[in-house]
């Protein structure tokens, strides 16, 4: 039978009540906390029973201390005197347990506890506010893109995964800060009456955030079709894991060697900064290499595009090459095809036809309208002489030649129709951009090849 156990329950920093409840439940199951590390909480087997726990903070302690200071030991002695034994400590956080039936709590003056938690949170709140702002900006821009530019956003596994993580980060930061300040407000009032208020953190939301992060990365690794990108992602994750392990290893090694708090903090931070910089350089180099070698680009050459210049014009030319860039998720699949003859293979003054088209398959019907709007207004930022009117505008045309539900033709400067069309079939949108005028027959042929 196992006599050691580990778990990782992410609690809000101030949520002493949640932590104490969890530890009491573990003790009732026969597990007593014996160590806390950055990787989780470690337990040893005991006789199941009712044990009281107190999670408190000793503000002068540091995670870089080689061992508890004399003052900290004196505090532990005080607690021991009233039956509270130290079971684990991590930095400022000190966890005590007491096996008596009705022990005197470690904290009996609510105003002091409030003051202590306030001081502890003062160091954490700036970081949490920074995360909140980052989460708001990134998550907000992700939401804006969802309604305004859904195609690029939802067809890319990377955008989908990172967007979900940013949104969860924002939600957790906002909820956690709200919970903390609500608790603080209530605790202040209660402290005047000499009463304690139990804390209530956002443990479930934090768990959800971690789950979304892990699932997003897993989805990203599984869904992304670019093998080189997958390799870069894996290396990046391995790099972060290595950074975490090395920094923790250095800190713990220096603690074992009884290095002073200042020395330990200085060396650990230096190692952290240097390794983080090296990691960033490594990631940038990896991406640069991947992009220049073409292994993390989703662009590839294909031989059998759905529609080609040859099919439309009937002119065969072996110099044509077609590049395809595809991205897909369970929301949207986007494929862009570009057929051309490379410049170096063209003869001077030779006039050759090019073909560029994008096929957007919308797998969830509620997104269709947003995608259509994006394609209709994609060029709205271009302005001509009239600053109030977009230079390029789609005008609805008869969809019959395309056999589609709706069709649009792009007009230039409000007076000249171009050869660019947006065709809307059920579940599929196609933006067709040949550099030559299409006849009715060519339209029918294109529709036959491109319709779903």
């Amino acid at each position: 039978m196992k006599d050691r156990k580990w778990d990782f329950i992410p609690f809000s920093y101030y949520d002493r009540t949640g932590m104490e409840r969890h530890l009491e439940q573990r003790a009732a199951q026969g597990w007593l906390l014996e160590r806390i590390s950055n990787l989780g909480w470690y337990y040893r087997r005991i006789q199941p029973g009712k044990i009281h726990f107190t999670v408190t903070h000793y503000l002068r302690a540091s995670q870089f201390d080689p061992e508890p200071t004399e003052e900290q030991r004196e505090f532990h002695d005080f607690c021991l005197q009233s039956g509270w034994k130290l079971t684990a400590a991590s930095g400022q956080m000190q966890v005590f347990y007491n096996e008596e039936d009705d022990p005197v709590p470690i904290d009996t003056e609510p105003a002091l506890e409030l003051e202590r938690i306030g001081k502890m949170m003062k160091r954490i709140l700036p970081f949490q506010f920074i995360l909140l702002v980052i989460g708001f900006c990134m998550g907000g821009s992700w939401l804006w893109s969802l309604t305004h530019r859904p195609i690029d956003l939802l067809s890319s596994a990377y955008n989908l995964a990172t967007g979900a993580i940013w949104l969860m980060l924002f939600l957790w930061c906002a909820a956690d800060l709200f919970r903390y300040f609500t608790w603080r407000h209530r605790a202040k009032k209660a402290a005047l009456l000499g009463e304690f208020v139990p804390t209530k953190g956002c443990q479930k939301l934090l768990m959800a955030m971690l789950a979304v992060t892990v699932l997003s990365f897993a989805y990203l690794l599984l869904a992304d079709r670019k093998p080189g990108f997958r390799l870069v992602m894996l290396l990046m994750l391995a790099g972060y894991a290595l950074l975490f392990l090395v920094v923790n290893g250095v800190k713990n090694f220096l603690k074992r060697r009884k290095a002073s708090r200042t020395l330990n903090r200085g060396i650990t931070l230096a190692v952290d900064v240097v390794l983080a910089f090296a990691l960033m350089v490594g990631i940038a180099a990896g991406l640069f290499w991947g992009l220049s070698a073409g292994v993390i680009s989703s662009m590839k050459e294909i031989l059998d595009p759905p529609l080609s210049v040859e099919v439309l014009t009937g002119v065969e030319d072996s110099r044509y090459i077609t590049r395809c860039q595809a991205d897909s998720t369970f929301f949207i699949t986007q494929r862009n095809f570009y057929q051309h003859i490379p410049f170096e293979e063209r003869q001077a003054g030779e006039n050759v036809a090019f073909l560029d088209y994008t096929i957007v398959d919308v797998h969830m019907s509620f997104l269709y309208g947003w995608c259509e709007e994006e394609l209709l207004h994609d060029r709205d930022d271009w302005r001509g002489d009239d600053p109030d009117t977009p230079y390029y505008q789609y005008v609805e045309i008869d969809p019959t030649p395309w056999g589609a539900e709706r069709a649009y033709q792009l007009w230039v400067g409000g007076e000249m129709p171009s050869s660019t069309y947006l065709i809307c079939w059920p579940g599929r949108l196609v933006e067709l951009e040949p550099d030559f005028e299409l006849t009715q027959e060519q339209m029918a042929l294109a529709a036959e090849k491109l319709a779903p």
Partner: protein
Amino acid sequence: MPRPKFQTLTEQMYYILLCLSKECCGMDIMERIPAMTGGRVRVGSGTLYNLLEQFAEAGMIRETKAEGRRRSYVLTDKGKETLSGEYRRICAQAWDYRTVFGEEEQR
């Protein structure tokens, strides 16, 4: 609105200072207070530790000796003044009570 620190004392602060009218170490206070109050007042170890530090910082008590990790303290003049101020406040409260309800009800 939070009250200014130590302008009025809570019951726990009052008894800690009262215990320190004679030199004693922190851990002894934890036993003396329940004995003094018949178990009515109990001071948590964390609260006692923090209050001793804050009283010392405020100059209301001073450290007299340290035997290993056992530090002893005694009340200073400022501490005595605060304590007697609190005593007068409690007496005034008791007086007001008697004024309202009379001596009879007190018995």
